[in-house]
């Protein structure tokens, strides 16, 4: 089944700017979309992008930094982020910390930079801290845009994002019924990286209102890692006879934010991020990650996990040996694939995934 027409990044950015909105380029992973939107700023995420000429990044970064960061810096220096008015850098890992610091201190792009620290736990003090961090971001945005959105506007923006996220959740829940190919499903899910919530809502509603879906065909698997790039890997998985029925990807499933409870906007934004599915960059334990993956497998009848990770990504690499052993002990086998955003999908990767699927039978 085909997807409804979806505007691409450039079309979306151009249209938003034409309506006198502004753009924030946002690095991975977690940040409060609604806070930007309350200032009429559209966050557009930068996950690399893949296939960038990395020589520009190489003038600032050593080769042992992951390709997400290398590419983002190259992309910025090549003018790829020229349409952005701001750049937000969540403190996701040591590499993004360095990236934010280099931008502020040395690269100094024309855009204002917002670093954003994300606490590594879900304790009461983490909630308090993150609430204050968002309040500080509000003050920065206010200073730069001259706007002071009221609590009511903030809450309205939060609820709109919550509605979009709820529909995203429904898409995942009905993944078994929404008969989209692996590629199309993730193409749709990943539009959350740049579409305004209202546009995403209308597309998601259209897809969800369709009738007569088939179950996806093939061996059910979970995809874990940072980002499914090159996206062609999803088509390859289909061709190899498997269906990605759930994911634990940083750009997708780890951001299935539930609605917040508080009526205080900054706190509610913080609650949403802190209560998201387990994510090593937010400090979740191995046990939490194991339980989450087993639950996903249980709900979707997934028979194995493909850990699809970016080379040099420490947050992912540390967990894998024990996490995979725990899953194996619980009857959920896995395979580990390492990619560089700039490499085409290699035969070796295709063979490894194929061999894994054969084992799953």
């Amino acid at each position: 089944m085909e997807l409804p027409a979806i505007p691409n990044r450039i079309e979306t950015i151009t249209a938003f700017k034409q309506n006198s909105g502004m753009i924030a380029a946002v690095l991975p992973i977690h940040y409060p979309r609604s806070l930007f939107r309350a200032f009429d700023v559209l966050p557009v995420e930068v996950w690399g992008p893949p296939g960038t000429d990395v020589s520009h990044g190489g003038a600032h970064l050593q080769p042992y930094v992951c390709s997400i960061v290398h590419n983002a810096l190259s992309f910025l220096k090549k003018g790829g982020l020229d349409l952005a008015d701001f750049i937000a850098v969540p403190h996701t890992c040591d590499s993004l910390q360095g990236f934010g610091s280099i931008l502020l201190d040395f690269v100094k792009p024309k855009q204002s930079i917002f670093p954003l620290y994300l606490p590594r736990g879900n304790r009461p003090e983490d909630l308090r801290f993150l609430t204050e961090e968002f309040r500080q971001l509000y003050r920065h945005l206010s200073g730069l845009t001259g706007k002071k959105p009221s609590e009511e506007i903030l809450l309205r923006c939060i609820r709109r994002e919550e509605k979009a996220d709820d529909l995203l959740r429904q898409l995942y829940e009905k993944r078994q019924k929404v008969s989209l190919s692996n590629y199309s499903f993730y193409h749709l899910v990943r539009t959350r990286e740049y579409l305004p919530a209202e546009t995403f809502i209308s597309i998601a509603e259209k897809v969800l209102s369709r009738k007569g879906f088939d179950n996806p065909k093939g061996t059910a698997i979970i995809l874990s890692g940072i980002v499914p790039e090159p996206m062609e890997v999803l088509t390859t998985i289909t061709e190899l006879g498997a269906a990605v029925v759930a994911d634990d990807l940083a750009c997708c499933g780890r951001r299935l934010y539930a609605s917040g409870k508080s009526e205080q906007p900054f706190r509610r934004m913080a609650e949403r991020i802190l209560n998201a599915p387990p994510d090593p960059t937010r400090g979740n334990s191995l046990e939490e990650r194991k339980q989450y993956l087993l639950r996903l497998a249980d709900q979707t009848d997934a028979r194995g996990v493909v850990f699809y990770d970016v080379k040099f990504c420490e947050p992912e690499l540390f967990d894998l040996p024990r996490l995979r052993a725990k899953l194996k002990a619980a009857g959920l086998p896995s395979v580990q694939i390492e990619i560089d955003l700039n490499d085409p999908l290699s035969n070796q990767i295709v063979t490894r995934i194929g061999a894994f699927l054969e084992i799953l039978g």
Partner: protein
Amino acid sequence: MSVSATLKYMVNVNIIGKTALGWQRRRAEHSTFSSSKWRTDILSEPLRIGARTKELISLHYLAGRYANGHRPVAWVTSGGPVEILQALGYYVLYPENHGALCGARRAVVDISTEAENAGYSRDICSYARTDIGSVLSGKTPVGKLPKPDLLLACTNICQTVLHWYRVLADHFNVPLILIDTPFVYDEAPDHAIKFVRRQLEDSIPVSEQVAGKTLEYKKLQEVLQLSKDATELWLEIMGRGKQHPAPLSVFDQFIHMAPIVEMRGLKTTVDFYSQLLKELDERISKGIGALKKERKRLLWDNLPIWYRLRYLSEYLAERGIAVVASTYTNAWGELAPLINVDKPLDSMARTYLYPILNKGTKYKLNTMRRMVEDFDLNGVILHSDRSCKPYSIGQVDQRNRLIKEYNIPALLLEADHDDPRAYAEEQVASRLAAFMEMLED
């Protein structure tokens, strides 16, 4: 805590260990024959304090060997707020220091391979790999490491420690205290300081529960005072590098820094550094430098290359190059003024937020520039450390700025702090040779 473990500890550590190690030290101190393996034709005789350093480190690991069952044991990250644990009587182990020791003793490849065979990637920090390999195999050059009852990870050096300590927490199934210190891009905002303070406060009941005793405020103040004293002394020691010739090199600092990292808050550490300072002052009064002939002076940035300390030291000394200061060793001294014993938790919150590794790339560049000026240096070697991203990212720009904007010769040297497999001697030698030429221009 068990009576038999205490008995074993008393006999093996307090009686046999202390006596034997004390005797070994005295013998080394009084020996007229130099046992140094380092080249004394180009380097001065090693510092006499070396015998004491060896004694302290050996005793520390010996105490660790018998600690389980006798004292609570905590494994802590190198920038972690250790004072609360010291005040509660914990035996504190720093896996990073153990990693450094494994590096210096060339045991890393063997131990790290154990972790790699278990699935840990060679792309993760080599300290972490060495530690995990040691945990999985029991291999260590120090005999045996105690099992932790508590883990404490403080993110003020990197986020890597969070991931590493979660693996340890899962393996040992013990509580993990996280002290999360928001990165300071410029100045730490108020809410970040409060955040760290609250976490320190919350760490107390957990540490008390594991230790089975209550923290005495007075004891905490005492420990904090000792910590401050030792840190101030360390700062003074490094400051002696400003002398011409410098009485100690960074290679000496790397060797003698273990107590400031893993024994902060102890009286022995204060005594140790007082003695070292005295020895340096003696050297200064006699005009003795770390090198027999000091022609040029450099700054070292980033962690040491533990497995090639001697090679680098001698290679440079042969050419009259003294490396007299380092941003790395400086990190354990520069925060001394922030410690305030009258406000333990408030001052700890600030102190532990501000290490150089928790501050922006520009701050590090400014620190390098300031040190070049203060120590009257001719250039900088920036060790681009493959598996320590937080320290290394930013170095390319820092090097470029040092050269272009401040006219300071600077070299980026690719290696790894602990893993010799990421080190190419020929390449290092040729890069150093080219840099030496530049220094002569």
